[in-house]
């Protein structure tokens, strides 16, 4: 089946893409660039660098700017999906939705209205299982956003690997964070993975951080 992936550049949407590619044909990535940093629907840090990820995977990439206002985002989501249908004849959409009934309900409704299949392969996956799946599927990602106590700025730019997963799971016990960031505690950016023909090298970045909230601004990156 020809599918488009709702792609934020983070670990969840990449892992969903990789699962979907096992028995389906991934035709394009769809990325909404929210003007608002705390979008209801869409992951935001480093989103402008999704074009490099699309290039690394050799996939078509549709992008659209969205206001970030709660329900207007959904109109923009519908518009970008419609353009993927008309441009690439996709038959369905893949998302990295994991636990948010708010997200999944709205995406399911849009796909239903457009007579498209909707696939959410991470749905209901426990946070610790998701982190292990990243390791076992060789997904290399870095943390590009934090928004919870006790994250300090040393977390920005840190790889999600066996060592950081141990620390994230410890924070689940001590501070009740969702270790894979389902509550928005962390945001991530995939820099290398099995579907990448080249990896992404981040050569210049800047941390913006205060009071347990921060983001990594990627300023220069290239494929190598």
């Amino acid at each position: 089946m020809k599918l488009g992936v709702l792609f934020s550049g983070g670990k969840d949407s990449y892992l969903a893409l990789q699962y979907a590619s096992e028995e389906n044909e991934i035709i394009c990535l769809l990325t909404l660039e929210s003007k608002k940093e705390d979008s209801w629907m869409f992951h935001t840090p480093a989103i402008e660098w999704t074009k490099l990820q699309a290039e690394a995977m050799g996939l078509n990439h549709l992008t659209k700017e969205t206001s970030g206002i709660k329900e207007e985002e959904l109109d923009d989501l519908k518009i970008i999906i419609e353009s993927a249908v008309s441009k690439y004849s996709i038959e369905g959409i893949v998302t990295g939705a994991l636990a948010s009934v708010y997200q999944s309900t709205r995406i399911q409704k849009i796909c239903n209205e457009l007579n498209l299949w909707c696939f959410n392969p991470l749905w209901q996956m426990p946070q610790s299982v998701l982190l292990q799946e990243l390791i076992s599927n060789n997904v290399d990602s870095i943390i590009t956003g934090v928004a919870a106590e006790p994250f300090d700025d040393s977390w920005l730019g840190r790889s999600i690997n066996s060592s950081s997963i141990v620390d994230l799971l410890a924070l689940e016990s001590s501070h009740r964070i969702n270790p894979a960031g389902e509550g928005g505690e962390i945001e991530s950016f995939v820099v290398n993975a099995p579907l990448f023909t080249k990896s992404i090298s981040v050569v210049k970045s800047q941390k913006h951080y205060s009071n347990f909230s921060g983001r990594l601004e990627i300023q220069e990156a290239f494929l190598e």
Partner: protein
Amino acid sequence: MSILLVSTCENKLSEREFIDPISRIIEHNHKILHHTKCTSSSILDFDKIIICGTSLKDTSYIKHLDNFQKLLYDFEGPILGICSGMHIVCSIFGSKITENREIGMFEVEVLHQNSLCKKSFQAYNIHNYSVNNLENFTVLAKTNKTPQIVKHNNKNIFGISFHPEVRNENILSNFLLL
């Protein structure tokens, strides 16, 4: 106890969404089989059967209702049909599948005391179809437009319209206690 999870998913990718969450909740010994791989003799190895739901756009199971009837009619253990699985178990006993859309969280009112749930609750529904002609079933719970939990009048066969694996795992646990 051994449990069979029956997949009704046409595209294997949907099994990550509709089978795997149930598989993770069930701690008992269980096996997952696509319905086209099930036979009348192979299902006798199991004590209970759960027929899992599928994607909103997936109606492939409707073409196989006769096969489900041959497969399940004589199974004596408890059966739980979720969403498409509810359509299947109800069809086996004379109900009709009808268009009826609910997508999102809905308040479910409990009408009769039963072994799966006690008080009213919110449930996650994603369906374009439901069932009517429920003469052989008792409606145990409903939203304002849809039967949500039904039980066969003489057998331990349940149909659930919503997805208990989302926020109502206790309903699955209660089924396993039957």
